[in-house]
């Protein structure tokens, strides 16, 4: 037998085998449904959230027979899993995400401009529209606004005789005083604040990261901000090595730390554990030239441009995150605590009038920052490395920031190709 013939046979067999394997895995549809939309959420930690989104999906099907929604709840590293799934043919039709420019360039997300009539557009925070826009088109519907706060135990501060800290030096002094043998002064995450403060600290110094297409963080203010967090770490009063990270309130509620930087989403759990013995602050200003800072975060709902059912997906997104104010309110305020993205909905929310949420929401409006869609994960890795070297290992800040900025510039240039 001639070798070349055998090779051809192999190719044939290989194609056949691959085809047979592929045939075995079509998309699974709900019985009786004309269209099944797959919708992805990351795992929310608050009890009841998963049942809630399943309920919304069922309600949509009831109102729109023929359209089933398959909700998928993803614990763990959501953004990597989502990014990976969007590369394939089996990606979700509807998903929550934070918009990044490469998603648009690669044609992964469908433009949603037609969902935004002028009245609806006017009812969204301009910042929330901005972070979902690339090249003048809107790709995401902001579902809700998230923010974080420096929570403190009022009683413990009183006992230690410290005022709620408004500057970094005051915070460092307070943390030292609050630190005891069995309770640390402050929890900002198990990595000493690299993950949670990487943006917040420079913002509190008046610096920023990517403005009008330019990398701007390579400056002495960013350096000073990270060096201050190094000083905070050096107090030895930060809680490290807790089972969960800064986004979970356990460290505060279990009394492992007197203060914690965590999300407003955790407020219900904190209130349940500590009652009124808790106050909130924005992250303190670096110094007199700085301003307090927090983030304006949250998730946006997007539609997969590769989906065979883009129109149905868009209708569903419109129904859930634009039309159904009642569901948005339920989602934001019945389980964890999020600020509804649209002022008209937020205004009707009584829960927002309590002191702590009101203060936190106010701080978000005044001091909240967000990163533009052109800031991406590769830049974040570069900055995280620099921040780790500066604020954990104490390496000279200037060189580290210059390095990171150079790398971010390259990434930015490549993105614009």
């Amino acid at each position, binding site marked *: *037998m001639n070798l070349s013939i*055998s090779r051809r*046979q*192999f190719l044939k*067999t*290989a194609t056949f*085998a*691959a085809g047979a394997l592929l045939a075995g895995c079509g998309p699974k549809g709900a019985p009786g449904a004309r269209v099944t939309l797959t919708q992805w959420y990351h795992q929310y930690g608050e009890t009841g959230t998963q049942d809630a989104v399943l309920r919304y999906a069922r309600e949509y099907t009831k109102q729109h027979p023929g359209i089933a929604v398959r909700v998928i709840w993803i614990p*763990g*590293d959501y*953004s*990597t899993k989502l*990014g*990976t799934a*969007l*590369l394939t043919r089996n990606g979700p039709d509807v998903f929550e995400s934070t918009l990044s420019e*490469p*998603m648009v*360039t*690669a044609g*992964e997300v469908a433009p949603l401009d037609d969902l935004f009539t002028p009245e609806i557009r006017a009812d969204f925070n301009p910042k929330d529209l901005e972070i979902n826009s690339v090249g003048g088109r809107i790709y995401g519907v902001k579902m809700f606004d998230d923010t974080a706060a420096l929570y403190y135990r009022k009683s413990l501060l009183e006992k230690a005789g410290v005022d709620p800290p408004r500057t970094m030096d005051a915070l460092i002094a307070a943390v030292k005083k609050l630190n005891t*043998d*069995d309770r640390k002064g402050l929890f900002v*995450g*198990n*990595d*000493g*604040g*690299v*993950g949670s403060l*990487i943006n917040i600290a420079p913002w509190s110094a008046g610096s920023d990261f990517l403005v009008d297409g330019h990398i701007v963080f390579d400056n002495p203010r960013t350096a000073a901000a990270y060096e201050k967090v190094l000083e905070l770490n050096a107090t030895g009063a930060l809680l*490290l*090595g*807790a*089972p969960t*990270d800064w986004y979970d309130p356990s460290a505060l509620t279990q009394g*492992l730390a007197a203060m914690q930087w965590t999300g407003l989403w955790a407020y219900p759990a904190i209130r349940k554990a500590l009652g009124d013995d808790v106050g909130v602050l924005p992250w303190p200003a670096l110094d007199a030239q700085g301003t307090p800072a927090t983030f304006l975060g949250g998730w946006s709902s997007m539609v997969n441009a590769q989906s065979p059912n883009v129109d149905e997906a868009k209708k569903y997104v419109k129904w859930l995150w634009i039309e159904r104010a009642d569901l948005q309110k339920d989602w934001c305020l019945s389980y964890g605590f999020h600020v509804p993205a649209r002022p008209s909905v937020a205004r009707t929310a009584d829960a927002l009038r309590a002191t702590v949420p009101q203060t936190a929401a106010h701080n978000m409006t005044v001091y909240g920052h967000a990163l533009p869609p052109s800031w*991406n*994960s*590769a830049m974040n*890795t*570069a900055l*995280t*490395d620099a*921040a*780790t070297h500066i*604020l*954990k*290992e104490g390496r000279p800040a200037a060189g580290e920031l210059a*390095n990171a900025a150079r*790398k971010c510039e*390259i990434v930015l240039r*490549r*993105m614009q*190709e």
Partner: protein
Amino acid sequence: MAVTAPLSKIKTAAPARPRPKPGANLAFWAFVAPSLIGLIVFTLVPIGWGFLLSLSHAQNTIHPGHYVGLRNYTDMLTDEAFLRSLVTMVLYSLFIVPLTWGMSLGLALLVDKAGWGKSFWRTVFFIPSAVSYVVASLIWRISLFNGLSFGFANHLLAPFGIHPIAWVGTVDPPWYWLVLVTVRLWLQVGFYMIIFIAGLQEIPKSLYEAAAVDGAAPGWQTLRYITLPQLRNTSFSVLMLNLIAAFQAFDEFYNILGGGGQSAGNASLARPPLVYLYSTALGDQDFGRGAAGAFILTALICAVTLIPGKLFGLGRADK
């Protein structure tokens, strides 16, 4: 316990074959077809595809096409984070490889000569090999080296007046290395111990008897002049298997230091190449640079596994 072969062990000499019978060609291809197709589709095609990707600007796409020459390679080779990950890999190997070699040989010697309960001891040391890196990482991070007072290590230190140590988050001294090294030792020492025990059993008893006649003291002298030289090839196998495995470390770094955005600052303290490639390719969705990095790493591993064998002619006579 994934096993990879040290290259130097591979014998390439063609076997003495029986006379061909009718239908030999057909039978041969039928028998190798499943494996051949599988290896082509899942190893060779990816290598070709990956090579094209490594020459492409492939942001948020797995399709090569936007060719940019060797730019991804120069990007990676000038990327401080990638170079640091290679340094991390080398440093880590310098710790883990000799330690594993020494401990597994030591255990093998202890267990092999234990007249009583030999199979019991063997089982006890070998059984951690059944546990996954993920599971072990969980135990290490959440229970054994938990940073709070309810971590086991901290509990043992408490009577000495030592405050709870945040093993994973502390950089000075870098306790996280203790966590990372001990977890791998626990998982793999038993496996290599088994290989050493097999090696020990192949040493002819007559060698020891002859040495005794020549007046060699049992213990250090026989170990130095008989046991170790006789275990030369086994040692070489163990070192190479171990080195290849260490170069591909991922699971425990990802799970103990935190992958996927969680405790990002700890993850960048010690990031081996596979973790960096995972974050570049799947996290940043930059498949061009991810593929280029994969090829650089592959070349390094091939070099490291080929050179010692060529240089010292070791492993050749391995039976």
